[in-house]
């Protein structure tokens, strides 16, 4: 009985939902295919904003995947392709926003909060020791 329970827990823990868009693009080599996958997995779909371009089934995401595919096939660099999309849709399309004045708070707030917490903790331990 115990073994069955363990097995169920194991299966639940290892269960993964994988969503992939349905269109299949033939690539000349594995390198291009990997580039395409990385690009579509790090760019946001603007229609369904919590999905990447790779995951989304929206019409726009599929159009943009085709654009990315064609540009990868044409031998354009990752930077060029990302630039092409940011020019049109803005930084919002990037899942990892650039470190710029507009995003300082976003990037630095976790560090600030962590140091604040550590500061309080150290102070607390120091005081407790002295008493």
């Amino acid at each position: 009985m115990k073994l069955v329970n363990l097995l169920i827990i194991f299966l639940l823990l290892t269960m993964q939902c994988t969503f992939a868009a349905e269109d299949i693009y033939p690539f000349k080599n594995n390198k291009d295919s990997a580039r395409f996958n990385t690009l579509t997995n790090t760019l946001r779909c603007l229609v369904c904003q919590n999905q990447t371009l790779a995951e989304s089934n929206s019409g726009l995401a599929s159009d943009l995947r085709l654009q990315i595919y064609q540009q990868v096939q044409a031998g354009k660099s990752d930077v060029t392709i990302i630039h092409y999309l940011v020019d049109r849709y803005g930084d919002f399309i990037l899942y990892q926003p650039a470190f710029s004045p507009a995003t300082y708070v976003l990037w630095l707030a976790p560090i600030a909060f962590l140091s604040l917490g550590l500061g309080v903790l150290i102070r607390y331990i120091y005081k407790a020791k002295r008493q």
Partner: protein
Amino acid sequence: MRKLYGLIPLMLFIVCITVMWRGLSLHPSDVPSPLIGKRAPRLQLPLLLNTHLISLNKELKGHVTLLNVWASWCVACSEEHDLLLHIAKNKNFELWGLDYKDNPEAAVSWLERKGNPYQKVLLDKQGLTAIDWGVYGTPETFVIDKQGIIRYKQVGPILADDWQNIFLPLIQQLASAS
């Protein structure tokens, strides 16, 4: 000093509530366009029910243009259609339609049924021009000044309030500029 420390949790609580309260009124689906203040991207498309490509960037100049991205399959587009018909009487600007990923016959019958507010209707069957313009949904409306520079983009239908408070003042300002 001790007393002040006691107030810290309350202060943190107030900060949290303020931030979250503000979060309720944000519209994360309205993505700001990076094209504001930039020259209008290439606009080379056939007119609806016409197969010839025409380049329209030159024709954008000399007057304020509202470019309304719509489609006959778009439900939200019917919401603003009455407003478009109404504002089309205004002579301060030209109203152009960009028919996005649509069946031309369906688009024509839609316009015949509901009335055509547009001076020009361009057909973007593949949606490629729309990508150049950073369109991610219908309807969207661009305000383009006399020099062909994009000044504003509205995501979603134009409501009467938007028209009064955003579009009219902006168009007036752009139309009176030389």
